[in-house]
């Protein structure tokens, strides 16, 4: 497995090998799928749309609907106006969404298609909406694409509203439906009526009923988005993915806003709870405090199996930040912390976290890099555990290292996306997985005389 990967690290300036990120449009598509009755539309050649739907389908084991402008060579030369016009008509005719969320691709961006002006000139059916985000694939990563669609939603749907409402706006960033549900539950427990944007609960994990509908019951409702400026406050999660939409909200609506890390692990979940508490003024319910107490209890009980274990954490910046924090809470050493997303800020965040925990070991933290590099690092100085997406499984097999899957995409396991990694429940779940991986390895490797029945 990966036998062609040499130990010696050669500096690369041209080739990215085995990427740890993908392109902007899929982020925009996923974001749009968290709006109720929304059809994401990919303005480019149809391969992009097909690839994005496929990767989302494989991760969520769910239909991922989206349409394409189906550019041909002609459209690439003369511009995609007519393709977009036809698309919008056909989408409303055939799939009858309430809203179409258009995003661009490297093709339509390179030819300089002015989608905004196309939409201005377009006749949109009464009561329907079409919004648009620019997502050139040659910038940022899928995380930036998600963020760009968030900004588009806010800019193009949210209206000035003199009236305040009772809701607390939540920007979860790129999370799974199980996380959306858990974040809303925690907010409700704290007496904060959540308005989550986007909301993939019941949109990318619809129940089996025997009758397929294009649109699930879930997803953020358009009237709620329109009134988002009147929310009591905003909690935006993820310093990389949610920073831009959060600052846009502050600028546009002067909303009291708190930017917190994605609530993974105890400390970051505490931050989220405190933020909610600050808004609602409510005490933390006993049951929730017990929930927290039980995770801390679990961590202390099992700490000997995680203490000083070296882990490579890789994937998208915000979830990697959260998972790194959880690993540190478990006494682990985040030996390599890696993202493909080109954001230097990631390195600062992680380094600060390592310093905060006084990690003595030399750890390598890098953004804008790839899994080939991480593999080479591991070849030179191995780790005990891999924590990240399915694409790490090649390295896991090559180097015989246990892997715990998290983040996007997880293409080779089931049931992950309908459960949380966030909150105290998510922490419990992740700790169980990490322990299972490490302890199973200890069992597997133990000599007969060292094999323990009680651990």
């Amino acid at each position: 497995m990966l036998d062609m990967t040499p130990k010696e690290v050669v500096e690369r300036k041209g080739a990215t090998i085995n990427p740890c990120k993908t392109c902007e449009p899929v982020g925009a598509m996923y974001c749009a799928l968290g709006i109720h009755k929304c059809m994401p539309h990919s303005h480019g050649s149809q391969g992009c749309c097909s690839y994005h739907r496929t990767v989302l389908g494989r991760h969520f084991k769910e239909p991922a609907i989206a349409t394409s402008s189906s550019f041909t060579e002609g459209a690439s030369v003369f511009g995609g106006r007519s393709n977009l016009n036809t698309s919008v008509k056909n989408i409303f005719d055939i799939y009858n969404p309430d809203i179409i969320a258009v995003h661009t691709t490297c093709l339509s961006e390179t030819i300089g298609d002015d989608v905004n002006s196309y939409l201005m000139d377009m006749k949109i059916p009464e009561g329907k909406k079409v919004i648009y985000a620019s997502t050139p694939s040659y910038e940022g990563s899928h995380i930036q694409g998600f963020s760009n669609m968030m900004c588009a939603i806010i800019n193009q749907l949210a209206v000035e509203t003199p009236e305040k409402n009772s809701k607390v706006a939540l920007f979860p960033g790129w999370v799974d439906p199980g996380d959306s549900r858990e974040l809303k539950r925690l907010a409700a427990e704290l007496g904060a009526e959540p308005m989550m944007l986007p909301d993939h609960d019941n949109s990318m994990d619809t129940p089996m009923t025997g009758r397929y509908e294009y649109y699930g019951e879930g997803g953020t409702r358009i009237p709620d988005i329109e009134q988002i400026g009147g929310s009591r406050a905003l909690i935006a999660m993820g310093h990389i993915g949610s920073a831009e939409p959060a600052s846009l909200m502050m600028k546009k609506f002067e909303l009291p806003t708190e930017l917190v890390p994605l609530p993974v692990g105890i400390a970051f979940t505490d931050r989220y709870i405190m933020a909610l508490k600050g808004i609602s003024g409510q005490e933390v319910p006993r049951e929730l405090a017990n929930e927290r107490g039980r995770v801390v209890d679990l961590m202390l009980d099992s700490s000997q199996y995680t203490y000083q274990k070296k882990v490579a954490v890789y994937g998208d910046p915000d979830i990697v930040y959260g998972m790194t924090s959880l690993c540190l809470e478990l006494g682990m050493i985040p030996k390599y912390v890696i993202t493909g997303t080109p954001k230097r800020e990631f390195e600062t965040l992680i380094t600060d976290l390592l310093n905060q925990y006084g990690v003595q070991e030399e750890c390598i933290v890098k953004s804008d890099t790839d899994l080939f590099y991480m593999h080479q690092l591991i070849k030179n100085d191995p780790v005990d555990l891999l924590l990240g997406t399915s694409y790490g499984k090649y390295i896991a097999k090559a180097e015989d290292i246990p892997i715990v899957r998290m983040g996007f995409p997880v293409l080779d396991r089931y049931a992950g996306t309908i459960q949380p990694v966030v909150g105290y429940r998510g922490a419990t779940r992740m700790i169980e997985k990490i322990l299972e991986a490490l302890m199973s390895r200890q069992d597997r490797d133990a000599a007969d005389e060292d094999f323990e029945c009680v651990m």
Partner: protein
Amino acid sequence: MSTQRERLLDQYSARVYKNRKEHITQLEFGGEPDSIIANTRTVPGIMTARGCCYAGCKGVVVGPLKDVCVITHGPIGCAFYSWGTRRNRAKPGPDGKNFIPYSICTDMRSTDIVFGGEKKLQKAIDECMKIFDPKCIMICSTCPIGLIGDDVQAIAKINEQTYGITVIALSCEGYKGVSQSSGHHIANNGIMRHIIGTGDQKPEGKYTVNIMGEYNIGSDAWEEERILRRCGITVANVFTGDGAYATMKNAHLADLNVLMCHRSISYIAEMMKTKYGIDWVKVNFIGIGATCESLRMIGKYFNDAKLQERIEEVIADELETIRDDVEHYRLKLKGKTAGIFAGGSRSHHYQKLLEDFGVETVIAGYEFAHRDDYEGREVIPFIKPDADSKNIEEITVEADPEHFHQRYSPEEIEELNKQGVMVNYYDGMMREMKAGHVVVDDYNAFETDELIKKLRPDIFLSGLKDKYTILKDGCASRQIHSYDYSGPYAGFLGAVNFGHDITMTLYCAAWQFVKAPWEITPNLAGSLGGDN
């Protein structure tokens, strides 16, 4: 009474109706041959299953070549999505090289788009040479490359000279053509122009064949190879599943091309016929009967009594081995109906396999097929080229003075065709279907959903994008592009796997829970009298 086809089409607006009516046919087998329009532009906004030219070139044809460093030249996405997602299995060859678990990309950024990506591509090639030292590099361009005008062909030439290896630039930008099909063609051209015929090692074996249009999804090629080897036939190359640049160079020295996918690789088969005189036989190793028939065709083609005898022995033995299993699954599956939407030959192939288990296919369609895949090759002269197909280069080859060798004269080939050996000919999918069956070209989500609701097949085989939709409709579904991570489905052992998987899917215990008890039990209110 209106047909299912009409009722489906009637739901479209006039504009879409006009287009789609030509792509959907309900077979009649009347006086005129049934016909369909294919390989034309997709209606924008219709949620097609189709992919793009790059997907056909890199994803389908050249991606599976194990000893080739394929560099995706463009932004990161395309390289990411085509990495490890197609199940084209490979084992390293004698040189130990296997690039299948790798995805290499120039990961272009804004500055590269503005100032050109040639420098970055050159660096990527240098780095690949330093790290991987391959004998062959292929550059697959994605959408922006053609637009910003990077001269990838020139870079390929320069590097061939610099490094003394084969470097092939494939300009397979996503917007070219109307589907993956254009990408197949571009890849075929590249392989024909730069690889086939550059070697001089004749494959060893009395009868040597290249299996073409076989991508070794779920190890299909290995099952086919196993059977052929038993018969005394050597597989010199597989195009391109588990394929290798190292041996593909000598493909022109094999005795026969056997063609699985008629769409994705027929260009090479035809060009090899013209240039080297090698015939191709359209086979189908998907299905028990189909496999037997294909083996017999190959036997008849070589016209060697001993070989034919051996083939019969192998068939008898293989059938004996799988008999009980097949019977077991046949009892479970007989009388069921199926729908199949696949790429460009499988919807035909899998009907034969389903037939082996007593399952009738009532809906079949292709994503990117051409008319000849539906109607048979005799329709080719009548296909009008359009602006999109004209944009894809047709290369002309001439008979190679050194290597051109025809086993049979055209008259002898005609005779073979009469005997049912499909030499240089394919009769298409539709002829093997029945009246009333629905055929859909360039199917989309709406049509898939409607056809399931109207025709209620017991199982629907399609791709990932459809799979979960179909399941949620309460219809059993398996991916027939990727075999849902199972396989092989080809050959004799593959047929058993397929029977097992279809049975497993249909008889999944969880189906009984789709309706909750409170949904099907009447809600009785009040209390029963006479309790006191």
